[in-house]
């Protein structure tokens, strides 16, 4: 108790002292002074003269300064106190040079902010563990084709999952799931709600229980329906939004895809399952998907890769053992799931697949494989810009340290240890770094959301919890401390190295010092310039990639084109009814005022998906399988006009192409060349789907080539079939200058009338689709551009600082030159030459670094070589230009010197 009271009292004293450091010191001064005065008075009263009394006092007792120092040391938290004093002193110094402080803090904040933003994305997508018990014991299961060129597949077939579940001996439980949108009516509207279909062990294996009610289990996940009929578990969010947290929700029915499903539980807030980036509102037993019509036909098809699988390791089983076990069961599992009627070569490939596992700690993220490399490259880039930032501040600090050399010399002379002075300098750096970290966190808050928004597209929306967790805060703190020490240690060691005599001998006039520190600054500047070249080249390569992709002619005209996706009802409209529905929708879309043309599509271009097949060409047995395989799109009338694809020969589809008329196709120009090199494509026949007479289709036209899956692919051979002859439509494309909202409103009305209860999936312009298809490219390009510009500015500031300093230092020399007749241009040249001298070596080193490292990013580039000379030249050119600009001001100042004035100063 008394200890606590006295502790509080001591802390109060400490704080009061820090706040009133000056007053405390003055008080101590006065007190000690009065003591010695009294001692001297007494000695005088004993008959000594004042002089003698002083001498005796000095000899008898410790000196007043020593006593004061002892008092200071005796106080509580002497260490903390002196650190706080250092901080206070540092703040006071920084306040005195707000320009320097602003530049330092701003550049740090931008650097730390950018790296924190990148790290936040890495954290949330790659690092952060799932919010479930013992996430380290989870394993993510995938299939690898033993050929390097194929990516690992994180989706597998249901039959294969059943094999893994039955054969493995290493998991205490495995579960499978797929996510998608389900339909549920709300008022007049049919809503699309994000859902997860999970196998019976889903919740049990994850280890998460319901917050209210219960979760479903194996008994609910049966091919023929669960023991208790169709059941669902809903999210806390849906419970709140739709049911106002009514406890009676559990037990009620919710209509999903037209089927009444019983709600048996509500999950805890924040639970999202095993897939990072998704926020499901409904969980349904996997096998219920058969009944609800989602991937229904996939369950018994070994060629349908649609589910993700995870397992929980049995106690005592290591990840390595699990991996080995899965390898062992791979062969028999593949054997047991062979696709009937598979050709011999495909069968061979299928059988060589290996089941593998990796840590499932961070769950599964669809985005992961795509963003891993861009994020790593971005991290490398932000690290480099942080180094530039540090070099810059080190240079500025170094100049300040030089300016303070006299102060430092005096401090050292009156007995401060060098360590103590270095600590003061470092404190100043860390104060800067801390301010930079705070600014950086604020900036990253915005930047992280900006980057995450780029990655989230209308087709696959990604919802990430972007609030910084302890990892992010730790990262930011570490980055700040590391940079603070990095830019602080050099200048502080150098600043305290100088001997006293040397420092005092030197003419110290507004920051002039010896040559040594300039050499240090030049080296740092060289490093900055070299890193800037690297960052600018990276920005050039990534921005170049993005621009090339954006300006690439996709073969169709993406402007003024809006695409609406229509999600079929559950149960779906099928067969002729579907064909007629889409024909009518396209017809009525054409009648919307302001619409130039409209057509139906089975695939939106650039959506990374689609339909492909093998085509038979009569009389061309020489064509390999590869040369006959084509991407397929089912389209309606006005296709060429709507998409802006040129019709090169023959005719478009029209109202005459019905399910009753002759089966016809349009083919792309490259397909026509490949299959009919004699130019007799139009009128010829091809086979699609099989060799029978019913598979024969007549080519009625040739259209321009266009991209199909994405912009990066080689333009594929494409075959177009009429939607009326294929029943595959899903989109209505509309060429119009109307704003999206107007098109949406008009089309919604039409859809309501034609198919009440059918939801509109997404509506977006083709430009949006292009942008979204380039999400990772945009991420990398924007980041690298931002970083490049930052590097450029920092380097310019750094160079300006050094030049301004040298011009000031050479005032006398320049004055003499001018007095001897040097003209303005030659003085300017003097400064510019100095600038080039400082930067040339850095530029050369930078170019060498680019040449040595740029190959690492080859896979992220498009249509540009990693060593693209134009890009490197542009990087160097821009940097030179900026350097000249940075040199302009000091050069001007030098050329405007009045020789007499300059010499007088000398």
């Amino acid at each position, binding site marked *: 108790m008394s200890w606590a009271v006295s502790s509080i009292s001591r802390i109060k004293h400490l704080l009061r002292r820090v706040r009133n450091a000056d007053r405390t010191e003055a008080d101590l001064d006065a007190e*000690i002074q009065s003591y010695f005065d009294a001692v001297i008075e007494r000695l005088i009263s004993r008959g000594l003269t004042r002089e003698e009394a002083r001498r005796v006092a000095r000899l008898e007792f410790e000196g007043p300064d020593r006593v004061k120092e002892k*008092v200071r040391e005796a106080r509580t938290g002497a260490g903390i106190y002196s650190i706080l004093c250092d901080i206070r002193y540092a703040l006071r110094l920084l306040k005195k040079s707000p320009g320097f402080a602003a530049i330092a803090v701003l550049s740090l904040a931008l650097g730390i902010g950018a790296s924190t933003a990148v790290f936040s994305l890495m954290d949330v997508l790659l690092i952060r563990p799932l919010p479930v018990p013992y996430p380290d014991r989870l394993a993510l299961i995938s299939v690898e084709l033993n050929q390097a060129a194929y990516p690992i597949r994180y989706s597998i077939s249901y039959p294969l999952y059943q094999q893994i579940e039955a054969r493995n001996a290493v998991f205490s439980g495995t579960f499978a799931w797929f996510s998608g949108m389900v339909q549920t009516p709300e008022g007049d509207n049919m809503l699309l709600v994000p859902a997860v279909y999970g196998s019976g062990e889903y919740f049990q294996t994850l280890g998460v229980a319901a917050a209210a009610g219960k979760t479903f289990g194996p008994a609910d996940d049966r091919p023929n329906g669960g023991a208790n009929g169709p059941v669902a578990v809903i999210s806390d969010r849906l419970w709140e939004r739709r049911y106002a947290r009514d406890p009676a929700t559990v037990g009620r029915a919710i209509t999903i895809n037209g089927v009444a499903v019983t709600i048996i539980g509500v999950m805890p807030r924040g639970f999202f399952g095993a897939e990072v980036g998704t926020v499901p509102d409904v969980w349904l037993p996997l096998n219920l998907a058969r009944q609800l019509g989602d991937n229904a036909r996939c369950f018994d098809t070994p060629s349908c890769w649609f589910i993700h699988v995870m397992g929980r390791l049995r106690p005592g089983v290591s990840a390595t053992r699990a991996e080995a076990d899965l390898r062992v069961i791979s062969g028999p599992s593949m054997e047991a799931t062979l696709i009937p009627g598979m050709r011999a070569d495909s069968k061979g490939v299928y059988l060589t697949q290996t089941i593998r596992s990796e840590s499932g700690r961070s769950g599964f993220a669809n985005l992961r494989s795509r963003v891993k490399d861009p994020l790593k490259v971005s991290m490398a880039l932000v690290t480099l810009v942080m180094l530039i930032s540090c070099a810059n501040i080190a240079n500025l600090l170094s100049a300040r340290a030089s300016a303070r050399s006299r102060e430092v010399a005096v401090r050292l002379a009156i007995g401060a240890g060098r360590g103590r002075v270095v600590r003061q300098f470092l404190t100043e750096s860390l104060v800067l770094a801390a301010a930079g970290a705070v600014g950086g966190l604020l900036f990253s808050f915005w930047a992280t959301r900006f980057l995450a928004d780029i990655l989230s597209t209308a087709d696959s929306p990604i919802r990430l919890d972007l609030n910084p967790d302890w990892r992010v805060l730790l990262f930011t703190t570490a980055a700040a401390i590391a940079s603070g020490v990095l830019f602080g240690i050099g200048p502080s060691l150098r600043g305290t190295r100088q001997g006293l005599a040397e420092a005092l001998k030197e003419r110290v006039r507004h920051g002039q010092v010896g040559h040594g520190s300039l050499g240090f600054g030049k080296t740092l500047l060289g490093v900055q310039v070299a890193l800037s070249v690297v960052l600018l080249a990276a920005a050039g390569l990534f921005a170049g990639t993005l621009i090339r992709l954006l300006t690439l002619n996709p073969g169709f005209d993406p402007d003024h084109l809006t695409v609406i996706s229509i999600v079929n009802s559950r149960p779906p409209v099928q067969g002729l009814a579907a064909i007629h529905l889409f024909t009518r929708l396209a017809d009525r879309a054409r009648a919307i005022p302001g619409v130039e043309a409209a057509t139906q599509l089975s695939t939106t271009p650039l959506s990374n998906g689609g339909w492909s097949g093998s085509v038979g060409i009569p009389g061309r047995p020489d064509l390999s399988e590869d040369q006959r395989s084509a991407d397929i799109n089912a389209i309606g009338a006005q296709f060429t006009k709507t998409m802006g694809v040129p019709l090169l020969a023959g005719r478009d589809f029209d109202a005459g192409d019905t399910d009753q008329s002759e089966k016809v196709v349009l083919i792309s120009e490259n397909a026509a060349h490949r299959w009919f090199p004699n130019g007799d494509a139009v009128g010829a026949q091809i086979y699609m789907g099989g060799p029978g007479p019913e598979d024969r289709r007549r080519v009625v036209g040739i259209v321009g080539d266009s991209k199909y899956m994405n912009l990066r692919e080689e333009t594929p051979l494409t075959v177009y079939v009429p939607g009326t002859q294929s029943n595959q439509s899903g989109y209505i494309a509309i060429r119009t200058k109307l704003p999206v909202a107007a098109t949406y409103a008009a089309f919604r009305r039409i859809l309501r009338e034609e198919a009440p209860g059918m939801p509109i999936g997404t509506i977006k312009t083709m430009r949006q689709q292009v942008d979204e298809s380039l999400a990772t490219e945009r991420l990398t390009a924007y980041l690298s551009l931002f970083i490049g510009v930052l590097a450029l500015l920092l380097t310019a500031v750094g160079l300006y600082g050094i030049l301004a300093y040298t011009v000031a230092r050479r005032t006398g020399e320049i004055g003499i030159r001018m007095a001897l007749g040097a003209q303005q241009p030659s003085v300017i040249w003097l400064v510019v030459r100095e600038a080039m001298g400082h930067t040339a070596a850095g530029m050369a080193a930078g170019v060498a670094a680019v040449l040595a490292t740029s190959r690492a990013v080859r896979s992220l580039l498009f249509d540009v070589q990693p060593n693209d000379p134009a890009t490197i030249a542009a990087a160097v050119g821009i940097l030179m230009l900026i350097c000249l600009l940075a040199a302009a001001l000091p050069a001007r100042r030098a050329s405007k010197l009045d020789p007499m004035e300059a010499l007088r100063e000398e």
Partner: protein
Amino acid sequence: MSRPTDLLQGTLDLLILRTLEFRPLHGVGIADRIEQVTKGAFQVGPGSLFPALHRLAEKGLVEGTWRELNSGRRAKIYSLTPAGRKQLTQEKQNWRRVATAVAQVLTEEG
């Protein structure tokens, strides 16, 4: 200066508190008084006195205020706080216990 006895840790604090028990004193007064009472056994120099005083002030056991002396000089006068008085009582008891115990040990050995 002569340092006849090494002060036990905390002994100086006790001496100061005891010195201030009956009246407030300034630094020189405290040093004089201790020297006088101990008949010169303890001579307290400023290098020990002031750190101890400030430590005690921090703990809230004494407090110092600036006053004008009869001589016209200003000096910081220290006095006991209520907490200091309580502490002194406790310390005195402790000291007696320790002193008795040590004395006993010495007697037995002797």
